């Protein structure tokens, strides 16, 4: 079996992942658009192929068998790999415009100061005529611990090795990183002055001679001050690499709103993407300090090893497309969050990529997609009511609650465990994802004499299938419209969100729903019994 892993990246994180996998005897391909590889490997057991000056063109197939096409000097390269790890570097954008400044000899970006200080180890006379240095950090936009650390380190060296006076102008000083509060104390001891802004902001002026004047009100004493630094250092925003956008698009993996490769979804902790077999690590997925990149590298290697171990088993009960029914409308292709639908001469499901969420089957307008045990017919067999009637109410409503297995089912069980009393007529129907619930599932419940139907999904941004909960809400909204038109009580159908640890909230939700249904009385769609 193919056990090759393809790594995209050319920085410390990619390096560390490669060393980890080679130590475990895995075979590697490392690909980067850069002309040279920036690190060297101590190969001991596995084999490694290095593709520099190479850009990804396409990626087909699924975990265990990705078919990669790349371009190197206008030549096409094809490789088959079992897994892919994205470990691209981030990049920095200087925040000059935020402060109304332009780069000049005395207004420099943070990375330039870091470089100067590296050079300064060789030439201590690098800051002639400089007495005061001001750092601008996160005044108009929130900063982060990675940038704050670099600023504090620079200020500390200027202050203690070069005897300069340094000022850090900041709003919230970001010390939530390893050792940063201790560093903050050290800088203060060395004489670094912190000027913090909460309700006010400094006024920053560039004079005609190029000098900078910063006027501000000290918020504690409410006195006015003027600072005239010889060098003003402007902080930076950390953004994904330019290549990240191409990679995420071609590989079909989700990004967060800032373009880092990994959706902002807890189910992707730590290095996972929406696509099985494609991992993302280090600064390609999140703003990260150097130490944490090493941690990510370990996780990427682990995920890769576990992927290989798991590929031996053939996944069962995945989605299947009935070719006689399929009209190639490509709804499934567009809707599948895991990129498990492949277009060949016909539309097929990649079993190793399918997570069995059921979204494709629920969304298919032809009903051409089948997943064993998720069909409305087999699910409706579970829709039987209990036999303990309510004594305190006119009738005991039969309530069907479609519950996502990851959230609402767990919350319901926790609810019982916590001692909450649930409605006696409540029937929980477990589904792998609320996105698997189709019109037919909901109609089946009413047909099987439900007085009320609930769809209990994950919170927005917490759906393992990314959009399953949204699709469920749309389905409910459409049926609600239908109910309004035909004059059936729309209150009999509800959709709500829950997480697995919300036992109390589950009990409150179903009890409130039961009370509403008792108020409405039995459903008119109910067959006479």
């Amino acid at each position, binding site marked *: 079996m193919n056990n090759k892993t393809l790594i995209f990246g050319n920085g410390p994180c990619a390096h560390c992942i490669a060393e*980890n996998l080679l*130590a*475990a005897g895995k075979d590697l391909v490392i690909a980067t658009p850069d002309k040279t590889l920036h690190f060297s490997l101590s190969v001991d057991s596995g084999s490694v192929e290095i593709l520099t000056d190479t850009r990804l063109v396409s990626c087909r197939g699924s975990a265990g068998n990705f078919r990669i096409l790349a371009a190197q000097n206008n030549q096409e390269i094809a490789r088959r790999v079992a897994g892919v790890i994205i470990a691209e570097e981030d990049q920095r954008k200087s925040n000059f415009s935020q402060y109304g400044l332009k780069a000049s000899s005395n207004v420099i970006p943070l990375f330039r100061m870091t470089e100067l200080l590296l050079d300064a180890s060789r030439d201590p006379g690098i800051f002639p005529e400089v007495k005061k240095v001001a750092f601008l950090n996160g005044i108009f936009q*929130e*900063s*982060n*611990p990675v940038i704050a650390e670099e600023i504090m380190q620079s200020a500390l060296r200027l202050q203690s090795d070069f005897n300069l006076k340094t000022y850090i102008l900041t709003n*919230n000083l*970001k*010390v*939530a*990183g*390893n*050792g940063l*509060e*201790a560093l903050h*104390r050290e800088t203060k001891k060395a004489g670094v002055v912190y000027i*913090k802004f*909460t*309700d006010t902001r400094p006024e920053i002026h560039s004079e005609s001679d190029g000098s900078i004047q910063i006027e501000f009100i000290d918020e*504690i*004493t409410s006195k006015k001050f003027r600072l005239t630094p010889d060098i003003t250092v402007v902080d930076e925003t950390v953004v994904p690499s330019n290549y990240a956008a191409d990679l995420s698009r071609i590989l079909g993996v989700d990004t967060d*709103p*800032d373009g*880092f490769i990994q959706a*902002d*979804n*807890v189910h992707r*902790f*730590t*290095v996972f993407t929406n696509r099985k077999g494609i991992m993302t690590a280090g600064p390609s997925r*999140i703003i990260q300090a150097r130490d944490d990149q090493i*941690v*990510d*590298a*370990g*996780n990427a290697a*682990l995920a890769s*090893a*576990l992927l290989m*171990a798991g590929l031996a088993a053939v996944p069962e009960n995945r989605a299947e497309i009935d070719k006689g029914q399929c009209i190639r409308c490509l709804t499934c292709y567009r809707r599948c969050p895991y990129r498990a639908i492949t277009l060949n001469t016909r539309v097929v499901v990649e079993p190793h990529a399918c997570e069995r969420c059921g979204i494709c089957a629920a969304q298919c307008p032809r009903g051409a997609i089948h997943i064993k045990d998720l069909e409305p017919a087999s699910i409706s067999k579970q829709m039987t009511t209990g036999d303990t009637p309510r004594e305190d109410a006119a009738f005991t409503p039969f309530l069907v609650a479609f519950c996502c297995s990851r*959230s609402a089912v*767990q919350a319901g*069980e*926790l609810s*019982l*465990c916590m*001692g909450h009393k649930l409605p006696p007529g409540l029937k929980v129907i477990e589904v792998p994802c609320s996105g698997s619930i189709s019109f037919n599932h909901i109609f089946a419940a009413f047909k099987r004499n439900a007085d009320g139907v609930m769809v209990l999904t994950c*919170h*927005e*941004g*917490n759906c393992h299938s990314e959009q399953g909960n949204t699709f469920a809400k749309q389905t409910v909204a459409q049926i609600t419209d239908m109910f309004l038109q035909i004059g059936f009580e729309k209150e009999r159908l509800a959709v709500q*969100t829950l*997480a*697995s*640890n*919300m*036992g*109390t*909230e589950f009990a409150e939700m179903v009890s409130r729903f039961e009370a509403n249904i008792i108020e409405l009385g039995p459903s008119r769609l109910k067959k006479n019994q």
Partner: protein
Amino acid sequence: MTDKNVLIIGGGVAGLCASVELANLGIHVELVEKSDFLGGHAIGYACKATRNTCVKCGACMVEEKLKNAVSHPNIKILIGSQVQKISKNGRFTVNIHQKPQYIDSQKCNQCAICSDRCPSDGAILNGFSKNNIPFYGINPEKCLYLKDTSCHICRDECPEKAINLDEKDSKYVSQADAVLVATGFQPFSPVDKPYGYGLFKNVLSTLDLERMLKQTARVKTPSDNKPPERIAFIQCVGSRDSKLNHLWCSKVCCGSALRMARLIKERQPDIDISFFYIDVQTFGKDFEQFYKDVQEAVRMIRAIPGDIYETDSQKLKINFLDNSTHETLEEIFDLLVLSIGITPCKDSRELAGMLDLKLADSGFVSAGTEEASDFENGVFTAGTVEGPMNIPETMAGAGRAAWDIAKYLKPNGF
């Protein structure tokens, strides 16, 4: 499958995650937890989603990891257990003391009858997750039977006959190829700070509030069990404190407190919330937007209050310097929530002694020391035993430790 065995000390987030990863690699794990329940502090955390939208605190992921761990065939779980002695002669020989297991985890069906009928307050403990198996534990300090055999209602009324109050403690010896120390953190005890914790009824810690929200979904003032009108959160209690020599930011408190503040504001909009802080730390990828929203819902005050006094009606009077007017203000709140920091766990000090681990000046274990002694070879650490971490970082640290252990053990097929 291999014959390698790893002993994991600590059943919190790091211990659970590392167990599951190693078990998935086919390595046997013995997971030792000193309390009656797995899941660490985090299993008591509430879901803090607002506007039906996840805020990515990661609490639900702890539930998932716990669920995976308790059902994994490669993981043996020892709750109520503590390591007493570790020696190494090739493999590690670890002597473990296990408290009496009064409730049979196989028989208990979580019916709650024991808890409902017990006449002694606090004698029956309960877990926070349905995957805390058993869901109940018996507190020997409060149980009347264990005191003077005067009561055995729980044993008699248990329909499953799952309770045996005569159970004795036991000893267990583990033979391990590697040891992972994941003993977590000690929540800072605020009793020595001038905030009246433990003295005034209506002063809670963030941990207390997390649990209250998980149990009851609403906040109530402990003195009268009614919703408070005004709540104050105080940040950095036990963190960033040079007097205590706590020269670290606990990283998690701004996220926990502000997410809870917004949740309370959504569910109980009549409550006024003030938030006292030094610097608001970034948490989550959508921090910028969250922070904007929360500043509309919560009154943010960049000051840390001085002493707290209790009024005759059990309200709390606090003094602070108001930056906008430069005056000292005095305000009254119904409930005070202290954002207590992450501090080193005292068990880690003992274990560090047994395992030759190095402690930093802060008291946390220094991770990844350069020159490992022969004894230390095969000893790993993960999670907040190394210093403050949030849930995703802890999960990542555990994954990395699992990988390092796997590299060290090189099981078959690796």
